[in-house]
């Protein structure tokens, strides 16, 4: 079955992308599969200047999930453009940049730096990182700020699609989804991690140096699915679904509730070939559930 999709103008050979922060800069996974067999990759969050991130320990394993407080460690946007991007097969593999900044102006500036980069297919804007003191989650929880960021990025993004990545840590996801759409976003992606915590009872300490971190992995899938379902029904722009996807069946669930594409995140750590296997499996699963075509299947949930 042909599983290619059009996502906000991006032609994807399949709807399987990899999530920011869980696939490095893509190159780390070349030994484990054919990058070009994926619909696309979203690289680690980029900021204008390099960031060291948070102190260790930064990760903890939790039942069916993990907590992370990496704090957007990254080499900065220039290093990405000069050193990482040229090594990726971006002519045949859509490479999406993930943007992190602390205010709308800085987001706009970052978008401006990436706008002229031929190798970058789209900009995904992280207004929802729970692991940084500045900006971060407060942003993603304030609809006015979301609109402002979307406007600032859109203004400087040239002809690149702008995807706003939303936080699930809000009372009403539809308000944030509409706020992004109002700001001119071309698409949405959701969810980012859920705010969480883990404690070591022997040492009587938090398991993360940052105390609080972001929960991801299979444990968050029901929350993610619900958020995607609500967002799809609240806006006209396309939605990329992610959160806890670890199989082609999980992908089918997200497509059914209306996601046009999905991202594989924490499941890349179950084994480094997970995303490749899911991309290979998806057509078989869609055939098994008797989908006529992927376009027919997307959003065909009977409620």
């Amino acid at each position, binding site marked *: 079955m042909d599983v290619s999709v059009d996502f906000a103008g991006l032609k994807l050979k399949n709807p399987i992308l990899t999530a920011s922060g869980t696939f490095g800069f893509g190159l780390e996974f070349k030994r*484990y599969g054919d990058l070009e067999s994926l619909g696309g990759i979203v690289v680690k969050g980029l900021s204008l200047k390099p960031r060291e991130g948070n102190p260790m320990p*930064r990760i903890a394993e939790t039942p*069916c999930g*993990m907590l992370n407080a990496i704090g957007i460690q990254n080499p900065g946007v220039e290093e990405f453009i000069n050193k990482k991007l040229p090594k990726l097969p971006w002519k045949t593999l859509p490479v999406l940049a993930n943007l992190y900044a602390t205010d709308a102006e800085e987001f706009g500036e970052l978008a401006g730096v990436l706008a002229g980069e031929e190798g970058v297919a789209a900009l995904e804007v992280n207004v929802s990182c729970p692991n940084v003191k500045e900006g971060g989650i407060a942003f993603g929880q304030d609809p006015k700020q979301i609109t402002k960021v979307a406007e600032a990025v859109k203004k400087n993004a040239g002809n690149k699609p702008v995807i706003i990545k939303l936080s699930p840590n809000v009372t009403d996801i539809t308000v944030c989804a509409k706020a992004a759409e109002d700001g001119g976003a071309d698409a949405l992606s959701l969810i980012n991690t859920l705010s969480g915590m883990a404690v070591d009872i022997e040492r009587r300490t938090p398991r993360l140096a940052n105390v609080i971190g972001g929960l991801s992995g299979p444990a968050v899938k029901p929350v993610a699915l619900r958020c995607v379902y609500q967002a799809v029904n609240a806006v006209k722009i396309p939605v990329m679904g992610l959160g806890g996807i670890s199989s082609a069946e999980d992908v089918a669930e997200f497509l059914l509730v209306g996601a046009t594409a999905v991202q594989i995140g924490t499941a890349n750590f179950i*084994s480094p070939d997970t995303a490749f296997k899911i991309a290979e499996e998806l057509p078989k699963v869609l055939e098994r559930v008797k989908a006529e075509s992927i376009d027919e299947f997307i959003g065909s949930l009977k409620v």
Partner: protein
Amino acid sequence: MSANNCRAVKVISNKPLGLSSPGEEIVELKLEYPDWKPGWRAGQFVMIRPVSWPLDLIWGRPFSICNADETGLTILFQVVGRGTARLLELKEGDEVNIWGPLGNFFSKPQNRPVLMLAGGMGLAPFCGYVDTHPQPENLKLFFAHRPPLENYPYKGLAGKVDVEDIRETKPEDIPAIIARVEELVKEYADNDGLIVACGPHPFLKTIWNAANKYGADAELSLENRMACGVGACLGCVCKDGDDHHTQVCTTGPIFKANNLSLED
């Protein structure tokens, strides 16, 4: 399709060594050789995740390659938590996903004395190091351990290289271990030797301090918590000599003492 260096291999054997008591097992796990090309180097590690693990354990677990050849890949592990407790349950014929060989490896200098400093499970990489070193006569092993010697694959090493061991049975034993480590580090620094070390964090910190004090050429293998093992998650970082965070799984696990910061 590019090569997929992640594959399922079968368990050949899985047995606690020596007189390991329940809950404190030191286990030798032998797996089918994953047919690595061009091969592996001592000090590298693998990520292991049994196929049978449900999703309540997400990550694979990193283990040093103890030894590997066409007859199999040997791992030595200690039961310390949820994952290793379940590894202990593996039976012959069970399938295990492994990806590797990962990370960098210890140097094998020619015509230079080499001191191997091993703390507890830090012994694992030195089994392969000794077997693949072209001049074992230049090697000395100093081994600090808590469980009895029979619980480790130590005898084989004792037959091949100069060995010395010290057992810690109570906290009061620690100062003697530190003093001996310092002495040895100084001796090898003075004789232009190489020090290769692996073990728990406090053990490595002692070596790191001594190496910097005496200007020793020392390579330290770190054992940070890992999620991906391939450099993608940034969960395993340490601080390099310039105080920048760097991935232990890909820049390491082995770092030169003078290019590493173990300050808390």
